[in-house]
């Protein structure tokens, strides 16, 4: 289809996310992700200039389960673009408790809002929402299934620390079996290529085979599986920590024994490169000692900011609002 579009339009259309829903990152092409990363960077440097870009637009945050962190990020992103926010949080909402279907709620809300962010405990709820209405729907987490803007935040953090998301050695540590954020991050990085993954976990919590198959299929990406964080930490450009949850273990002894192996503290950090970035999807429990927070390598609170910036980039894109001074087409900047 693309070859029928005149070449002069091609680069414009390949970034065009106007009116599009984002249920998974499969809905966003690799060039579009690069575009969003560039846009988030621009927003970071030009917050006053973009502060009225979405004036008059309304975001509805439909949070069927509480996730204050994610909801605040979406709402702040919209407010920082000059738009407004409506919505509900928790299923105490009257229509939901009366058993209204997701489709009916969305058809109602679509009369009020220009874009929706939905969080729901059921897997696939965001797809149901996006199929019900014509306005863009952004998945803000559907029951541990997909959380695309978390992955965008992770990518933006790598981009801001290294000015690239390729040619990196990235360690992923902790619960690699159930941690969907690390699966999504790996799958997305594999679309760009040239990443070496170091998968650090107890044997009980290894990376699922389908994710390993995805890495193998990517040609330029490789992986190794290890159990000892201290043995590999010195090789890493970035270290993505995840929670090791007690309920994943059959007995308390295994949990206690393994938990401490996968805690990042100042002593372990001494073995790491001075430029290594430490990421974590937050909230943390105890897998990163608070003494690490003041180390310049700690990037997890930046990740929160990058999440907001990427949500600003994404919402302005699906709404089709122009950011003053932002070059939609990268190549124009080169020519200028």
């Amino acid at each position, binding site marked *: 289809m693309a070859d029928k579009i005149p070449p002069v339009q091609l680069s414009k259309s390949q970034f065009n996310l106007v009116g599009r829903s984002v249920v998974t990152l499969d809905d966003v092409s690799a060039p579009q992700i690069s575009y969003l990363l560039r846009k988030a960077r621009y927003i970071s440097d030009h917050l006053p200039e973009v502060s009225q870009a979405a004036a008059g637009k309304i975001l509805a945050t439909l949070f069927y389960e509480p996730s204050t962190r994610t909801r605040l990020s979406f709402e702040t992103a919209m407010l920082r673009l000059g738009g407004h926010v409506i919505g509900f949080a928790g299923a105490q909402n009257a229509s939901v408790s009366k058993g209204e*279907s*997701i489709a009916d709620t969305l058809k109602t809300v679509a009369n009020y809002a220009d874009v929706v962010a939905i969080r729901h405990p059921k*897997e*696939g709820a965001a797809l149901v929402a996006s199929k019900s209405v014509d306005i863009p729907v952004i998945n803000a987490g*559907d*029951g*541990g299934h997909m959380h695309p803007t978390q992955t965008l935040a992770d990518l933006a953090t790598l981009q801001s620390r290294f000015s690239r998301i390729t040619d990196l050695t990235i360690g992923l540590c902790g619960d690699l079996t159930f941690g969907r954020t690390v699966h999504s991050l790996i799958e997305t990085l594999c679309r760009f290529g040239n990443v070496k993954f170091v998968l650090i976990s107890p044997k009980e919590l290894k990376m699922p085979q389908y994710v390993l198959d995805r890495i193998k299929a990517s040609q330029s990406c490789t992986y190794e599986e290890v159990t000892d964080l201290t043995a590999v930490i010195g090789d890493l450009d970035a270290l993505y920590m995840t929670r090791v949850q007690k309920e994943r273990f059959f007995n308390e002894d295994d949990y206690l024994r393994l938990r401490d192996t996968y805690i990042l503290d100042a002593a372990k950090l001494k073995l790491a490169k001075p430029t290594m970035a430490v990421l974590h999807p937050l909230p943390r429990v105890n897998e990163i000692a608070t003494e690490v927070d003041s180390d310049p390598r700690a990037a997890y609170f930046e990740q929160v900011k990058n999440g907001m910036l990427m949500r600003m980039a994404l919402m302005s894109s699906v709404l089709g609002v122009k950011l003053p001074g932002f070059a939609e087409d990268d190549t124009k900047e080169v020519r200028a």
Partner: protein
Amino acid sequence: MMEVTSISEGIIIDHVPAGTALKVLNYLHIDPTKATIALIMNTTSHRYGCKDIIKIQNSADVDLEVLGLVAPHATVDVVKDSRIVEKQKPRLPEHVTNVISCANPRCVTSSERDIDQLFHLSNPDTGEYRCDYCDEAAKL
């Protein structure tokens, strides 16, 4: 091998996964109380180990797309005048709507009313289907 009633007109569905013949008939909307059927269950096959075979008398066709979903490695022989006149393979449709239901209790299809059950072919080599909503592999 055991001797089985031959049919003169109809179809033979061979290489059905062992023990699933009744389920397959159900998905094909063939009523075992009405149609004339011979079922051979858990017989041995040198290709697949254990398998089921379904013979349906006086039936002209079978939904090859539904068969692709429930028994992708099955083969279909069309029999006329006691001879196999045609061999058919199940088709693997890219998408299937309202044929099977998602078994994942965390899936939105378990709670949302009036929702279409949608599956897509996730691996053409293995004939694996996954739920469009939650990505859980199809279970029959």
